[in-house]
């Protein structure tokens, strides 16, 4: 017999003898090394969500800067420097989940979520299993919170609020009152929840809701849906969309001559800087809901007021903040405050502190219900004026009056 197979055989047998069953488990040093507290964040730095991932990272970075400038995080009697360890999940949910396990290996128990509902939904069960704790700053779909997870807390208002807020604003402010509303919705879970929430509120308030039109998520061509509603002559078209579809709706509506007298409203897209840049004049007077606006009431020791936050982001990144920046910063803030309140970096104590958290901030009120959702903060409704989002609702945060009817020229 040849020598090589024998050598390989014996080498491998040695390896097998080391065998046991099961893995080595994870280290758990609470993520503190020296005087630095490390929080794990898996970001969509590449892939289809790269844009939103980038905005989220900006919010986290500003938070780290501000927290450390204020002296760091106090826990266990020590002042710790805050650091966020980033990993790229390439916009894929299974990678995002895997990264949470990898963070757990390194003893990083405090996690900031990835962006988007699919990624966050994949991370939540892993966090639950590993005994970590996660603050969700990017996944709004209510379904994440109806699965019995106790260790994930969302600082953002749930998806069902996105369109419902717009409808409520129309009800309160629009005179003459529009009668017929139609929802154009993407078919992913988040957008469908948005549409359902908006439809329910619209029905409750007495609007006529035409049958909703759905199109594939991330489509750049929504012309068939627009074509279908053109004949039905809606007063307002509300889009439950993300950036790509949102821009497509406005652009193609203009091309196809779809001109609802009450104009357009959309979720997610209009407050972002890309919306007015790609649409130019067509973006004027489009309504939207936002997780945050610079006139939100409340302030905190780290970011100051909402206006202060706006100035800081503009200075650091050269663009006006959109709500992705803000909700990310809020998530980081919530985690930091929980650590301070618990006076510990132990995951269980932080988790309990988060459940009890009730504070005002530059982001509005941060408090979680029993499911982990922040239902105590209302979303702002904005209107795009001269390329900038201007808050028009609720009344005590409004910067300007609603221009009605809003038109997309």
């Amino acid at each position, binding site marked *: 017999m040849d020598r090589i197979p024998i050598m390989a055989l014996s080498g491998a047998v040695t390896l*097998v003898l080391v*065998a046991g069953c*099961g893995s080595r488990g994870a280290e758990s040093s609470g993520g503190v090394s020296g005087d630095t507290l490390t929080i794990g964040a898996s970001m969509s730095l590449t892939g289809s969500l790269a844009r939103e991932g980038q905005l989220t990272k900006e919010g986290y970075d500003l938070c780290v800067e501000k927290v450390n400038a204020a002296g760091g995080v106090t826990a266990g009697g020590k002042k710790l420097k805050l650091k966020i360890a980033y990993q790229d999940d390439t916009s*894929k949910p299974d990678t995002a989940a895997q990264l949470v396990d990898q963070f757990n290996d390194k003893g990083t128990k405090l996690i900031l979520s990835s962006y988007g509902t*699919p990624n966050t939904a994949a991370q939540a069960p892993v966090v639950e299993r590993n005994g970590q704790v996660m603050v969700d700053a990017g996944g709004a779909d209510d379904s994440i919170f109806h699965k019995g997870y106790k260790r994930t807390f969302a600082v953002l208002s749930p998806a069902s609020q996105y369109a419902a807020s717009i409808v409520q604003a129309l009800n309160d402010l629009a005179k003459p009152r529009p009668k017929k509303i139609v929802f154009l919705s993407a078919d992913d*879970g988040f957008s469908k929840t948005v549409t359902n929430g908006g439809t329910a509120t619209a029905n409750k308030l007495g609007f006529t809701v035409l049958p909703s039109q759905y199109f594939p998520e991330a489509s750049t061509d929504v012309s068939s849906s627009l074509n279908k509603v053109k004949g039905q002559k809606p007063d307002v078209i509300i889009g439950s969309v993300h950036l790509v579809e949102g821009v497509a709706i406005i652009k193609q509506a203009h091309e196809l001559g779809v001109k609802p007298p009450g104009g357009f409203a959309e979720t997610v897209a209009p407050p972002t800087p890309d919306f007015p840049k790609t649409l130019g004049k067509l973006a004027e007077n489009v309504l939207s809901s936002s997780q945050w606006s610079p006139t939100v009431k409340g302030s905190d020791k780290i970011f100051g007021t909402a206006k202060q936050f706006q100035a800081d982001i503009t200075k650091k990144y050269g663009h006006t903040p959109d709500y992705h920046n803000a909700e990310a910063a809020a998530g980081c803030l919530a985690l930091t405050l929980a650590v301070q309140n618990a006076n510990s970096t132990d995951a269980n104590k932080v988790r309990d502190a988060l459940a009890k958290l009730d504070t005002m901030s530059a982001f509005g009120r941060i408090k979680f219900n029993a499911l982990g959702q922040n239902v105590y903060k209302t979303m702002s409704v904005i209107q795009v004026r001269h390329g900038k989002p201007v808050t028009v609702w609720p009344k005590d945060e409004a910067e300007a009056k609603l221009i009605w009817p809003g038109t997309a020229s």
Partner: protein
Amino acid sequence: MAASAVVLRSPVVRRWWPWAAGLVALLACFGLQSLLFVGQERIVTSVFMFVALAQAWNLIGGFTGYACFGQVVFFGLGGYTTAVLMSHLGLGFWATLPLAGLLAGAFGVLIGMPLLRLRGHYFAVATLGVAEGMREVVTNLGSLTGGGSGITVPTVGSAAVTAYIGNDGFYVLFLVLAAVAVLAGGLVGRSRYGLALRAIHQDEDAAGAAGVNTTRTKVLTLGLSGFLTGLVGAAYAFQQITIFPDRLFDVEITVLMVIMVMLGGAGTVLGPVLGAVALQFASEWLRQNYTEAHIFILGIVIIVAVVLLPQGAVNYVREARRHGEYSLLANVRRYRL
């Protein structure tokens, strides 16, 4: 005695050596588990998953030469079968696992019959069309599959018939699936069946003339490939708990399979294993150490690997040993225009 560059081995050794080596490798992988932390365990688990997927693709794409660009449809069908059966009918995972594989395999036979008549390129894109179309169909059957909102396998509370087997459990499950796939590949590679596949690859008409029932062989192979892929898909769905159509029918999974098989060496048994291991570890390592630019570097690595080893690593080694010519540059010169 002729001065031959070929190393002669006794026939007995040549026959059982690979099987013994495979068994040892399998045992070693079991042993490896106790050395790994949970996150590392997940990485190795994903390597096993891709080994299984690559081996399955190799059956139809490597041996038979019919590159199925829609392979992920079997993955997705297997995953969704498990998820739907577990959440709607309350079946246990172990009951749905073979069902998922069988459904995917049957689907492979079903689409194989009309599509395997097409020539190479057209077959490839037709299967791609099937995969993409199936994704859209699954997205649209919301009441059954949850559509764009995804579907969740019940793992908590009373609805969970099968307890979640955890990272340790999935390590073993995917390792077993990988072993099964490699075994299948090995058995196919060394049998008359495998010879028939290779004959079809080299010259289908001649193979037919020599008595191979090409249609039946091809369809069966696609079915087998689909079956194995479906099993992996089912395990994946259980592991991820919540699955979405975009991810389970993602064309990138097929592309990764193709890359792994071709870089490792198509039509060999060791090739897909090597390719899967190398690519997964490379992309993981790059991602952990170069957070911003890892995809860019991965692109360069793939290009360089392809240019230097166009025939795949295992085939390169075989040809090099046969001709005694080990220079990579000579290799490049052989394949360039």
